[in-house]
């Protein structure tokens, strides 16, 4: 990055934060602080919902997934439109009618205080941990490739988001989300245009897709019924719908976004905006990764994309081992490129037999490239047994730094930070609200003034911000980052959704039955998570179904017990 890139990065980040703090200055009551101006329009709600979900992990890690595994991950989002419709029809009118600040208040209305606390507690536990990951994930990748100090990156970005979220509450979060999404969209479009311009001359878009398809990168829909496969149409539709139902319908970081709407109409339209654009957005980001894959078949990529890890591990590996692998990789890549050019030439000549032969040769050549890359990873693993060599999170940022012109680099790095701060702000806003309303006002201080709760909410928001920064400073994550967040969510989300669906649809179930059933269902999900190897999306279905089924059974047992006592 040069001076221009840094000016774009620092200038944009500070301008957005300052604008948010300035625009939301002055005293505000609790309703305004937690729910915003209550006149928020649907586009702002839609962008805010999108910005809260789309973290920097989405934009750093997802193209890496596209590069490594193709478009299959898009199926993860197939359940989202269906879930958003259910939320608009069922969840939203109930929250609106009860005028709740948090989703867990509804559980208190419907069941009892302990069930409300359980819902809020699961949210605080899960989202509190997730908040650390959302701040750590971009910081570790960006600081590694930029050579920045990790602790400084975490603390600087963390304090900036804490500052405007604490100062302006929900209004500041919604306002910054709009600008941040603008920067993110601009960055992604810029990356796409630069990428297309960087593809070899003579390679049409159709050729690019043909090559990507030849390497099995365009398998967006997998009809397999194998439950061990992480992403299939069925796991995406069913597991993805339950994950989306739980996340958009019961996670306060999302509920707070659409409760700030001027009316149910505005909130509904904001949700439908996401139902329409969620899949295309994820497809577009994955396609970026696939195009980067094709680009790197013609331009030699690094053997291992995390260059900092590569350099630091050199001293641990036997002398000359990595250099030998790098040499072999260069040779294999050059051979593969020649085969690819023959494939394209045969394709343009309209010679199917030659095209088929060239394709087979190109795939074999790619097999050698891939095996050298795999061998390199296993050598790095052996050299540092504590860490799993996984460089997919570094693919997109490596492409940006090596092949994108200055100015655009600044724009894209700014987009990553905007994404990091946007999801972080939504989370902190929700963590502060839930702690204030469901814990502090409910258990500690019931009859204080509005001003007191606003100050308390600011303090709790700052507290969670500092917890997230602390977690990020001491975290050591090796799994692919976006999957780590989704897995963490899936372990908890199913049971929380079960609480809400029981509340909505199983009218005869009381608080005691659902409370103990939720605890039993959570224990079951933990036990299954550590003993099975099924796609993590299924835990959303299992947790929800177990919670509802246990609730019905326990409620029946309680009723039978009461009848037995009455007859005796």
């Amino acid at each position, binding site marked *: 990055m040069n001076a221009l890139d840094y000016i774009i990065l620092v200038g944009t980040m500070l301008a957005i934060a300052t604008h948010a703090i300035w625009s939301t200055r002055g005293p505000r009551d609790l309703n305004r602080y937690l*729910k915003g101006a*209550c006149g928020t329009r649907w586009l702002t709600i839609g962008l805010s919902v999108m910005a809260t979900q789309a973290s920097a992990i989405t934009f750093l890690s997802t193209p890496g997934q596209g590069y490594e595994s193709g*478009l299959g991950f*898009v199926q993860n989002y*197939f359940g989202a*439109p*269906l879930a*958003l*419709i259910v939320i*608009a*029809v069922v969840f939203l*009118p109930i*929250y*609106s*009618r009860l*005028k709740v600040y948090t989703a867990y208040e509804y559980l208190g209305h419907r069941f009892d205080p302990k069930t409300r606390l359980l819902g809020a507690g699961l949210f605080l536990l899960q989202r509190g941990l997730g908040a650390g990951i959302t701040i750590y994930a971009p910081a570790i990748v960006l600081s590694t490739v930029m050579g920045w100090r990790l602790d400084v990156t975490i603390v600087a970005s963390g304090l900036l988001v804490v500052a405007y979220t604490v100062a302006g509450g929900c209004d500041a979060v919604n306002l910054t989300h709009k600008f941040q999404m603008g920067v993110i969209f601009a960055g992604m479009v810029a990356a796409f245009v630069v990428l297309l311009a960087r593809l070899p001359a003579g390679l049409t878009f159709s050729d690019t*897709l*043909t090559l*990507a*398809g*030849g390497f*099995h990168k*365009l*398998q*967006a*829909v997998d009809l397999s019924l194998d439950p061990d496969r992480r992403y299939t*149409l069925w796991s995406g539709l069913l597991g993805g719908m339950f994950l989306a139902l739980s996340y958009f319908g019961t996670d306060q970081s999302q509920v707070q976004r659409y*409760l*700030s*709407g*001027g*009316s*149910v*109409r505005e*909130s*509904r*339209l904001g949700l*439908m905006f996401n*139902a*329409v654009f969620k*899949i*295309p957005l994820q*497809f577009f980001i994955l396609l970026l990764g696939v195009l980067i894959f094709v680009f790197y078949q013609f331009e030699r990529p690094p053997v291992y994309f995390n260059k900092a890890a590569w350099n630091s591990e050199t001293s641990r590996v036997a002398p000359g081992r990595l250099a030998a692998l790098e040499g072999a990789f260069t040779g294999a890549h050059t051979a593969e490129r020649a085969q690819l050019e023959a494939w394209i030439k045969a394709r343009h000549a309209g010679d199917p037999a030659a095209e088929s032969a060239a394709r087979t040769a190109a795939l074999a050549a790619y097999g050698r490239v891939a095996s050298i890359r795999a061998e390199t990873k296993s050598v790095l693993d052996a050299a540092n047994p504590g860490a799993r060599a996984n460089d997919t999170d570094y693919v997109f940022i490596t492409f940006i730094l090596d092949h994108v012109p200055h100015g655009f680099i600044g724009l894209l790095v700014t987009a990553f930070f905007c994404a990091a701060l946007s999801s972080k702000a939504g989370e902190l806003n929700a963590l502060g609200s839930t702690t204030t309303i469901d814990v502090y006002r409910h258990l500690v201080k019931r009859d204080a003034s509005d001003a007191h709760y606003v100050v308390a909410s600011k303090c709790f928001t700052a507290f969670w911000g500092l917890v997230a920064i602390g977690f990020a400073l001491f975290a050591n994550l090796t799994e692919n980052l976006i999957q780590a967040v989704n897995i963490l969510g899936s372990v908890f989300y199913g049971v929380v959704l079960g609480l809400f669906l029981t509340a909505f649809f199983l009218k005869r179930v009381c608080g005691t039955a659902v409370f103990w059933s939720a605890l039993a269902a959570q224990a079951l999900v933990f036990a299954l998570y550590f003993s099975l190897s099924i796609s993590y999306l299924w835990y959303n279905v299992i947790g929800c179904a177990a919670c509802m089924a246990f609730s019905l059974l326990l409620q029946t047992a309680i009723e039978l017990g009461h009848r037995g006592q009455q007859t005796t």
Partner: protein
Amino acid sequence: MTEPDKDDSTGLPWPRRWAGVYGLVLVVFVAWVVLLAVLTRMFS
């Protein structure tokens, strides 16, 4: 959030009813899945 909307009107020129909005969203969703399935089949 202000008072819940009392009627089924979307306030849009089209679709005027919420059922229409949900139907439209479903059509877009199905179209995306079909397009992605076609992409998978064309380039596999």
